């Protein structure tokens, strides 16, 4: 059970890395996880999505009506991009760079289009990571797992003892 989950998690992670959704920064974050913080990456990703939501909102508002302050848009996106890169969100980061290029070119339509791309990648990654965290060994999972395993082992021992005792 546990190994199956592990395999599943490893497979998912490989996919995410191969398809470019994540980069090695994500792997580095996972290396930081230890017994004291077994769900570290999941927590970080969760807080990322919570905190970066305001960037998305702000940029959206800024793209609605003119006059368009491209420098401001660029600055906002710069901050969002930095945040995304810190969790290893590679595709999101790439979309952000494209958006920034449109800002530089003062191309508002380009900005809007690339921003749609940003939001899309942002949402896609969120779904994929949520699935990933369900299968990856985390504290919650391992707790349950541990609990189940311990229970199983106890039952095993108990039944063995019973057997020895005569009953079985």
């Amino acid at each position, binding site marked *: 059970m546990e190994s199956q989950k592990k395999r599943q998690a490893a497979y998912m992670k490989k996919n995410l890395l191969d398809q470019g959704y994540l980069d090695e920064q994500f792997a580095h974050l996972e290396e930081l996880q230890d017994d004291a913080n077994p769900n570290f990456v999941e927590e*970080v990703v969760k*807080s990322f999505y919570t905190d*970066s939501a305001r960037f998305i909102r702000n940029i959206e508002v800024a793209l609605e009506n003119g006059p368009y302050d491209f420098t401001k848009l660029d*600055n906002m996106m710069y*901050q969002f991009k*930095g945040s995304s890169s*810190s969790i290893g969100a590679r595709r999101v980061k790439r979309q952000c760079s494209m958006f920034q290029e449109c800002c530089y070119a003062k191309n508002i339509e380009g900005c809007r289009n690339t921003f749609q791309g940003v939001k899309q990648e942002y949402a896609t990654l969120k779904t994929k990571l949520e699935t990933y965290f369900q299968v990856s060994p985390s504290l919650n999972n391992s707790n349950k797992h541990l609990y189940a395993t311990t229970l199983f082992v106890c039952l095993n021992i108990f039944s063995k003892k019973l057997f020895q005792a005569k009953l079985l």
Partner: protein
Amino acid sequence: MNLVASSSVSWKSNSNNSDRVEKNEFPAGLRVLVVDDDPTCLRILEKMLRNCHYEVTKSNRAEIALSMLRENRNGFDIVISDVHMPDMDGFKLLEHVGLEMDLPVIMMSADDSKDVVMKGVTHGACDYLIKPVRIEALKNIWQHVIRKKKHEWKDKDFEQSTIVEDGDQHQKPPEDVDYSSSANEGNWKSSKRRKEEEDETEERDDTSTLKKPRVVWSVELHQQFVQAVNQLGIDKAVPKKILELMNVPGLTRENVASHLQKYRLYLRRLSGVSQHQNGLNDSFMGHPEAAYGTMTSFSGLELQALAATGQLPAQSLATFQAAALGRSATKSAISMPLVDQRNLFSFENPKLRYPEGQQQLNNSNKQINLLHGIPTTMEPKQLADLHQSSQSFVAMNMQGNARMQQNNALLMHMSQQQQKQPSRGQMLNESSNGQVSQPPLSMPQPLSSNGIPAAILSRNGIVDNVRGPVYNPVSPASSMVDFSLNQTTELQNSFPLVSSNSGMSTLTSKRLLPEEVNSDIKGSRGFPVGYDIFEELHQQKSQDWGIQNVGSAFGASDHSGIPGTLDVSPSMLVQQGISSMKKNGQNGNSPMGGPQLNLFSGGNLLTVKAEQLPDTSYQSNLFLEQFGQDDLMSAILKQQESVGEVETEFGFDGYPPLDNLPV
């Protein structure tokens, strides 16, 4: 989310590190303060640092981090800070930490462009990390702590020997009186040498064995220091003499020596940075001398003028002046800022008018009327009026209080000192008598070159810097103004203000840029030089308050919470008056100065002025200059005072000449 320092930091003396080193635990337990506005990044960094067995304190606000550092001066070993933060520019924080606490600071950013990295280097960052940061990069940060400590000891030793020599020289002559001249020399030298060696050894032993508590260079102390340095002259300032002048019990020559070294580096950096101004908000450090001279004179006068016009809160004006003074006149006293402060307070009302005036920027006449002495549009005759108004403004200032005069005198003194730089020196040449009115009044002359700003600058005496050719060194005041203006012009387009040498002005002007307002403001805060000067001039508590307020105002401007006054001054001066003025509402930095700068740059004061010199811009220029200084000061002062006053301080009390400017 707001992250406040975690409880991991405890007050520890420096001996902790040495103990740790001895016990071979080092670098475990290294006390790191990490500052980043991005909570995700902050969290990741904290985890990484914990994995390195460091003691981590995190903060997502630079202001909070700075106050933590100040409260607990020996509580941290190293600081890691992000470059782009909304409340304070990372480089400003870097400056503050370097000057006040002398801790190693590592900068971080996703931006790896060369100029930003260079900026980190010039501001004294001991390292620069590119985001996303890897744990491997953090594992070795302890080396910066060791290196810095090692250098400190080296400096102290060096200073010791220097001090010893000085002492020996003082001591020797009387002893050798009885000897013949030739014998004297021989004996004197040899005995001197011997004594020096002995003293050096003794002192070295003492310093190395004693665990000296780190000296806290508070605002007042630093002010005293700068005052002493200015009195002696930056070239002749030796630690022993500075110590004597300061007359602070418990302060050793070594403390003074190391602080002096830092101060010199700071000044050098200012002058070096001013050349790399483009786009550097913090470049306000430009040429220390230039910046000082110009800034000081500029800020003082402008502040007064602005204050008079009610544009700037008196306090802010004072701060400005202080800042300007500090920056521009490395050698000159900070008297100007002090004076300005007074003016700031007295001219709070006019300040309020400033915003109004801004709107009328185009209407020079109206503006002039609105702004006491701040000509909104510069026209030929207005220029002349400007002189007059500046003069009157100066007079007004003088009337304000004796302080003002003192400040002016100081300003003048400063400007004189700055004479080294052609543009700057002139400011206060004439004001040697310490009468404020005099130097500023001389401004009229400079106006010719740069128009109104020149006038103001002329008061400062740094006229010619503004645009170089435009300003004549003639008026001391104007030179300062010009200088600042010039510097701003040098700055990117955003700061038409002054591209002159004064790094400060450029910095301030940079701040004016709306986009950069926050960063600018921060930058100004980060202007340690101005800070120093400002502190010195701060003779009165009220002034300090003013300065602090101004400083805080600046900082506040970043938060767009700044009252109109702040916005008015600096920004106005810098950029195109109208647009910037509108923006000014939020930040003092608005580029009001722009129009003015153009003026100055054009060298045709009359012409330029007519087109652009909105009063606000002029004020903002001045303001800007001072802003940087003010930031520094405010940062320093903030410790002492509440920030609330910040906004009000920005008055341009010290902006005397504006009153005289004819509408």
